[in-house]
C-alpha cells in the first residue's frame, strides 16, 4: 500500500466549504428529526398503552409499518412516490419549495425514528409499577392527565439512555439521506473523494464527526442521567 497523505487538502477550498456544509446539514437534520421523532414517538408510544383498543391498534400498526420497512426504502417512498400521490396543485407547490431533499429527509427520518422511540416509550411505560397508575386515577386524574403529569415524566427519566442512543442512531442514519441529494457529511466526504481521490482524508473527516459526536453525547447523557435521577429508582453512579 503506497498512499501519500495530504491532510491540508481538507482545509483547501472548496473542500473545507463542503466539510462545513456537510457537518452543519448533518447536525441540523438530526436535531430537527430527533425533536420531531420524540414528539411523534411519545404520542404513538402512549396511545399503544391506552385503554381504547382502536388507539392501541393504530399505534401498533404505525410501529410495525415504519419499523419493518428499511429506512432507505422509506426515504425513496417520500422522495419519489409521495409527491406523485399529491393532488396536482399540491405537487407543484411541493416541487417549488426550497430544499425538497432536506424536507423529505426530515419527514422520512423522523417518522422512521418515531416508531423506534415509540417502542422505547412503551417499554419505559411498561416498567412503571401499576400502582402509579392506580394512585393517579384514584386522585381523580383523567387518563390523559395521568399520562401527562405522572407517567411520562416518570418514564422519561427511565428512558433517557434509550432516547440518547436514538439520537446517535438518527445522527448516523442521516448519512443515508445523501441518496436523495442532501449534502450531509458522508455525502460531502464522498464528493471530496470523487474530486481528489483522497479517500482516507475525506472519510476521516466524516468518521471523526460521527465519533466526536458519539463521545460527547455519551458523556453528556451520563451527566444528565445523574442530575435527573429519581432517588431510589435509577442506580447510583
Amino acid at each position, binding site marked *: 500500500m503506497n498512499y501519500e497523505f495530504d491532510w491540508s487538502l481538507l482545509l483547501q477550498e472548496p473542500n473545507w466549504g463542503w466539510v462545513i456544509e456537510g457537518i452543519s446539514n448533518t447536525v441540523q437534520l438530526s436535531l430537527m428529526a430527533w425533536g420531531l421523532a420524540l414528539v411523534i414517538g411519545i404520542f404513538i408510544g402512549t396511545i399503544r398503552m391506552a385503554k381504547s383498543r382502536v388507539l392501541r391498534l393504530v399505534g401498533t400498526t404505525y410501529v410495525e409499518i415504519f419499523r419493518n420497512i428499511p429506512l*432507505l426504502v422509506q426515504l425513496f417512498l417520500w422522495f419519489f412516490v409521495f409527491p406523485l400521490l399529491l393532488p396536482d396543485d399540491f405537487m407543484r407547490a411541493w416541487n417549488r419549495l426550497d430544499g425538497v431533499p432536506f424536507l423529505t429527509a426530515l419527514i422520512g427520518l423522523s417518522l422512521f425514528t418515531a416508531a423506534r422511540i415509540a417502542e422505547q416509550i412503551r417499554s419505559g411505560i411498561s416498567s412503571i409499577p401499576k400502582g402509579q397508575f392506580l394512585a393517579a386515577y384514584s386522585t381523580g386524574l383523567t387518563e390523559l392527565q395521568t399520562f401527562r403529569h405522572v407517567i411520562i415524566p416518570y418514564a422519561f427519566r427511565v428512558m433517557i439512555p434509550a432516547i440518547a442512543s436514538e439520537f446517535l442512531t438518527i445522527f448516523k442514519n442521516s*448519512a443515508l439521506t445523501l441518496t436523495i441529494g442532501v449534502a450531509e457529511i458522508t455525502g460531502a466526504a464522498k464528493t471530496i*473523494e470523487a474530486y481528489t481521490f483522497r*479517500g482516507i482524508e475525506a472519510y476521516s473527516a466524516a468518521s471523526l464527526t460521527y465519533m466526536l459526536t458519539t463521545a460527547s453525547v455519551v458523556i453528556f447523557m451520563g451527566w444528565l442521567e445523574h442530575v435527573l435521577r429519581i432517588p431510589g429508582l435509577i442506580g447510583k453512579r
Partner: protein
Amino acid sequence: MDFSVISDNIEFLMLGLMRSFQLAVFTIVFSLTIACFIAIGRVSSRRAIRYPSAIFVNLLRSNPLILIVFWFFFLVPLITGKTLPEFHTVLIAFVVFFAAYFAEIVRSGIQSVGASQVKAALSTGLTYSQSMRLIVLPQAFRNMLPALVTECVIVFQGTTIAYVIGMREFLHSTSLVAERTVRPVELYLFAALVYLVICFAGTRLALFLEKK
C-alpha cells in the same frame, strides 16, 4: 395505478431479492463467527485483548454503515492492489460492521450466563476455551436468540445500502425497473411491501422467542 409492471418484471425483481438474501446470509454467518471471538475478547481479563476488542466495537458502532461501505470501497483496492467484485467488497464491509453489533449482543449474552458457571466449568477441569465453547456459549446463545433475530432483520434491512454503490440487490433492481418503466409509485410500494412482510415475520419471530 397499474400493477402489471410488477408481474412483467417479476423475474428480474426476484433475482435482486435473492441477491439481497445472499448478502444478508453471508453477512450474518461470517460476522456472527467473528463476533463470538470479539465478544470473548471483550470479557477477557487481559487488557491487551480487552482494549483492542473494545476499540474495534466502539469505532464501528459510532460510524454509519454507508460510510463504512465507502471506506472499504476506497481501502480494499488500495490494500489489495486490485478491484474486487462489488459483492465481495460490500460483503467485507458488512461483515466488519455487523461483527461489532453482533459482538455486543454476544457479550451481553455471555455476561447473562454468570461467573459461577465459568468457575464451575473450570473446577471440573475444563480449560478456559473448553468452558467457553461447551458451557458458556450454548447458554448464552439461548438467552440472546431474540436479540440475534432482531439483528438479523436489521442486517436484511441494511442490505439496501448496497444500492448506493450500485450492487444489484432488491432495491436497486426496483429502482432500475422504476426508471425504465416510469412507474415509480407501483414499484417502490411493491418493494416496501416485500420488505415489510419479510421483516415483520422476522420481528414476530423475535417476539415469539422472547416470550418462550
